[in-house]
């Protein structure tokens, strides 16, 4: 007898086979005519400038971190949610305190501005009145 998760494994295996099978089957039909330009990275028909693999914004990690905290706390909440009714008000309060702390943490993060996606206030263009007198080299 397969366990419940065993069946899910079968599901996954079937889907992997399906996808790989479909892609391989297409290989029987599809043409393959690579060329140098075709294998270049697409960027609207222009040459790419620099690699996209750059250090990315820290903001993403902050979100991931907050998410992690929440996720862990939520995992703790599930067993509580399943059974708290058996303990009546007391049971609810235990979870309630936990939730309150979670909420407090969230409020703190909110206040701290960690929930804000970085969005620096763009300054409307201000007119520079005087023309600069710095000589700029003229390209011929």
């Amino acid at each position, binding site marked *: 007898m*397969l366990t419940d*998760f065993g069946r*899910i494994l079968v599901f996954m295996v079937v*889907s992997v086979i399906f996808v790989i099978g*479909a892609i391989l089957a*297409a290989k029987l039909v599809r043409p393959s005519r690579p060329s140098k330009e*075709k294998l270049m990275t*697409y960027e609207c028909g222009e040459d790419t400038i620099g690699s996209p693999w750059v250090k*990315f914004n820290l903001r993403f990690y902050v979100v991931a971190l907050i998410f992690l905290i929440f996720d862990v706390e939520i995992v703790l909440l599930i067993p509580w949610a399943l059974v708290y009714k058996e303990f009546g008000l007391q049971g609810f309060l235990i979870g309630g305190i936990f939730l309150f702390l979670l909420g407090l943490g*969230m409020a703190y993060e909110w206040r701290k501005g960690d929930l804000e996606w970085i969005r620096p206030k763009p300054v409307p263009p201000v007119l520079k009145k005087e023309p600069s007198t710095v000589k700029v080299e003229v390209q011929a």
Partner: protein
Amino acid sequence: MTYDFFSKLFGSDLIAALIQSLLPLFIFILPYALFAVWWERKVSAHMQDRLGPMRVGWHGALQTIADILKLFQKEDIVASSIDKPLFNIAPVLMFVGTYAAFAAIPFSSVFIGSNLDLGVFFIVAVSGFSVAAILMAGWASDNKYSLIGAMRSAAQIISYEIPTILVIITIVMVTGTLNLTTLSEMQTGHFWNWMILGGPGSSLSKFLLIPSMILGFGIIYISTLAEVNRTPFDIPEAESELVAGYHTEYSGMKFAMFFLAEYANMLAVSSVVAALFFGGYQSPCGYLGNLIGLKWLIPIEQIFWFTAKGLFFVFVQMWLRWTLPRLRVDQLMNTCWKYLIPLAFVNLIIIGLITLI
């Protein structure tokens, strides 16, 4: 249960499980995906005073088949600068994540891939596969649009998982179970037993629950929209900014897999929402099979209702898509962290208090 039936028929669990897992793919998801793509084009067309596909088959009914067959013959471009293993794994992973979710969705009272006790959570967990897949696709492509799309998508999907889970917890608090079949069974009878109307029973708390449940439904529906990257939350593939987002570099069958997974995902989240709040496969008004005494009719009716509800929510997703503009990434995060999560919290506490009464 069909599983036991197959198991007896072939005398092997493995074969039964195989059949069990192939069935939804071939009798449900593929036809559905074919239908949904055509339907989306038709719905969008009629919303825009157009006609949509008309030239192949009746009102273009064969359009998606032609599309798939064409994608089948398309060259598979693997650009030279990409990270090949990741690039190839991503579509597989994307589809696996989606498809595994179907394992835990009850299509009817007799057919469920795997009747997990943790059904809902399994689905939420497994949908995390798509985050990994999208990130892989975006990263591997060596394309700036893909990368930005993938980054946005990762942030978006994990953020919106929190309100989803919070709402699911409220359901768990009310019903005391995570098993989707049990959940659906609880909402049997008529539509007033559905969770959106406070669940079964007729106590005072049921009526008190109604507003909270509607709020919870709203939150989970919006978050699931975001999790499957539909407008107004389609910024990972935001066409007008990022060309095609994380699958910009994909062509041919690999792209088709992303496409298929997207539509399958839409159905998956719709059926979860239906199972949580709208009685899953349950009929809103009793069964014809019960009425005329044909017991075998009931599962078929259930499949019908399941499909109908799933498709209805998919339709609403399409409807929203063709109505709304898309949000910007910071607004998207704001919506999640400042609106949905606090509201879900408050909702959780209110429901906790109500259930104590």
